[in-house]
C-alpha cells in the first residue's frame, strides 16, 4: 500500500476514479483541469508544516487522463478549479472522517473556480468525494486520522 500523496497513491486513485462508470457518465463533456494544494499544518505526519504538495488532475470527457504531483504551485491560467486546504483535513477526508462539503462551507477548504457547473451537476461532486474517501488506497504508514493534536 502506498503512502498517501505518493506517486503510487496518485496512480491508484486514478485507476479507481476511472473505474467508476457513474463518475465518467456524470462529468460534463470537455476538459477539466483541477489543482489541489495541500499545506502541511503541523498535524499531518505526511507533509511538514509550512510545506505544500501540489497535484494536478486533468479530466477529459469523464476520464482522468492525468493525475500527478507538481513540484511547485500550479499556474492559475487554464485551470477550472483550485482546491486548497490543510493536510490533516485532506487526510481526514480520505479516511472518511470529514465531509468535504462541510469543510468547503466553513472555509477550511478554499475552492476557487466556477461553482455554477458543480451546482448544475451537484451529484458529480458527491461521486468525486466518494472516490477520494477510498481510504484503503493507503495503509497510513505514519499514522491515520484522527490525529491527536
Amino acid at each position: 500500500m502506498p503512502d498517501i500523496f505518493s506517486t503510487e497513491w496518485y496512480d491508484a486513485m486514478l485507476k479507481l476514479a476511472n473505474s467508476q462508470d457513474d463518475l465518467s457518465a456524470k462529468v460534463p463533456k470537455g476538459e477539466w483541469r483541477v489543482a489541489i494544494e495541500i499545506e502541511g499544518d503541523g498535524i499531518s505526519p505526511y507533509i511538514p508544516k509550512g510545506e505544500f504538495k501540489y497535484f494536478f488532475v486533468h479530466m477529459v470527457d469523464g476520464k482522468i487522463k492525468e493525475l500527478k504531483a507538481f513540484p511547485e504551485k500550479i499556474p492559475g491560467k487554464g485551470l477550472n478549479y483550485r482546491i486548497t486546504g490543510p493536510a490533516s483535513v485532506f487526510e481526514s477526508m480520505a479516511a472518511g472522517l470529514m465531509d468535504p462539503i462541510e469543510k468547503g462551507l466553513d472555509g477550511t477548504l478554499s475552492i476557487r473556480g466556477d461553482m455554477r457547473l458543480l451546482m448544475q451537476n451537484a451529484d458529480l461532486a458527491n461521486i468525486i468525494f466518494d472516490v477520494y474517501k477510498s481510504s484503503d488506497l493507503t495503509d497510513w504508514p505514519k499514522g491515520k486520522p484522527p490525529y491527536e493534536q
Partner: protein
Amino acid sequence: MEEQRYDAIVIGAGHNGMALATYLGKSGWKVLVLERRLEEGGGLCTEHYTRPGFLHNLHSNYHTFVGLCPVYEDLGLVGEPDGVKYAYPPVQMGSIFEDGTAMTIHTDMAKTHASMSRFSKKDADTFQRLYKEVKGFQDLMISTLMYAPPIDVNDITKALSTWKVEEKTEFFRARLRSMSINDFLNKHFENEKVKTMLAFHAAVCGYYTDLVGLAISFPFMLGKIDNWRLCIGGSHRLAHTLWRQMRRNNVTLRMASPVEEIIVENGRAVGVRTSDGNEFFADKLVASSLDLDQTFNKMLPTDILPQNVKSDVDAYEYQDGTLFSVHMAMHKIPTYKAAAFDPDINNAWVLNMGYECLEDFNKDWKDIRSGKVPEDPKLNVAINSMFDPTDAPEGKATGVIRVIAPYDVDGKGPGIWASNFKNAYSNRCIRKMEKYCDNFTAEDILQAKPYTPLDISEKLTNMKRGDWMVGRICEDNLMGNRPTPLMSQYKTPVEGLYLCGSTTHPHGFITFGPGYNALQVIADDFGLDKWWIEI
C-alpha cells in the same frame, strides 16, 4: 458626418460600461464608449454641490465590494501606481436610538460582539455564528452568485439539497427563498434593536425588509457588513481611474455624445447613430449599459423587437422608493448624545438615526408604496470628512443625510420634488438629526442643499424613477430572472446587441457585476482569451 469603425461600441460610461470596455481594450479590441453626459462615471458622481471646496458624492457613496470584486484587481483600480485609495473606517456602522443607547458595527468583529452584547448576549452570539458561517463560503458564493452569469435558482437549491447543506449549516436554508428579511431576523434574533441594526444594513443596500424571497440574499449581505469603504477624494476618482485605464488600452471615450439609435442591419446590431448625426460602426458588437426602456424603446427601431419581449420591457418594474438626500457643508463634525452610552458611535460612518424597530421599516415601505413621503424621516447619515479630510476645506466638513422616499408623490408625479417642499423636507431632516447630536445644530451648517428623487432621474436617466438599483429588487427580478429570463445572459433578441448595465444581474450599486458578467458571455461568444481569470 463622421463614420468610424470599431470592434465594439459601449453605450454609457458608467462604471459597468467603462469596465467592460477596458477589459475588451486590454484584450486587443478597438473600443468606443459613448456617453450622453459631459463626464464619465454615471453614479460615480462627485461635485462641489454645496460650496466650492466641499466634495459631495451625489450618488454612490458606499463602496462595499472592494476586495470582493475581481474588477478592482484585474484593472488596477486600487492602490499603486495610480489606483484610487479607500478609507476603511474601523467603526463601520452605527444605530443611535431614541433612548440614548447606540450600537456599533466594527471591522473588529469582537468589538461588534461586545456592542451587540449590551443589548442581547444571545443575539450577539447568534450574529457571531452567522457571520463566521457566511465568511466560510462568502468568497465561493460571491464568485458564483455575483461575478458569473446567473444560473437558475432551482439549480442552486437542488445543489444545496444534494450536498445536504442544510444539515451542515445553521443559517443557510433553501426555504429562505420563501422568507422576508424580517422573517429571518425574527426567526434568529430576539432583541428589536439588534434586528433594526441588521435591517438597516439591508435597507441601505437597497433590499426591502418586508419582501418575501429576499432572505435568501441576506446572509451574504451580512457577510460584508464590515466592508463599507469610502473613496478618498470622492467616488468620481474611481471613474477617473477607469478612464485612465481605458485610455491606456485603446478605448476611445466620447462625452456629450448621446446615442439616438442603435443601427440594425439584417437583424444584427452593427453600430449607433449619435444625436449630432455621426455614425459609428462595430464589427463585433454593441453593448448597452443603459436601462431597458432607453435601450429598447428609445434606441431601437420600433419593429425590431418581438412583441413578447417588448411587453416584458414595458412591464419592467423599478424599486418602490428612491433617495432624498441633504448634502451639507459644515463648520464641524457632529458628535452624538449617545456617545455617553457608546463612545464609538462618534467614530461610526454609516449611521441610522430614526429606525427603532422592524415596524418602522415596514411603515416606510408601506408609505413609499402608496406614494407618501415619510412624515417622520428616518435618517441615514454619513460624515465623510471624518475619514477623508480632503473633501472639505481645512477645519470644515461635509456630510450627507439620506432618507428613503418615493419618486411619485401622492399620485401626482415627481413634481413636488421641484417645489419648495424639498427645502422644507430638508429642514425637517436636519431638525431630526439635531435631536441626536450634542454639539451640532442647523447653525453649524454653512449650506445644506437637497438632492431629490427627481434630481437623480434627471441627472442619470438610467436611474428611471430615481431607482439607483435600476430595477426592482425582488425574487422575480434577481439572478436568472433579471431583467427578463430571456435576457438574463446579457444577450438580447437582437444579434450583436448585449446588455452590460445595472438592469442586469446582479443589480445597481458599485458591484461591477453586470459589466464583468457580460464580459464572460462576450468572451465565450467571440473566443477571447480570458486573461483575467486565473484560478
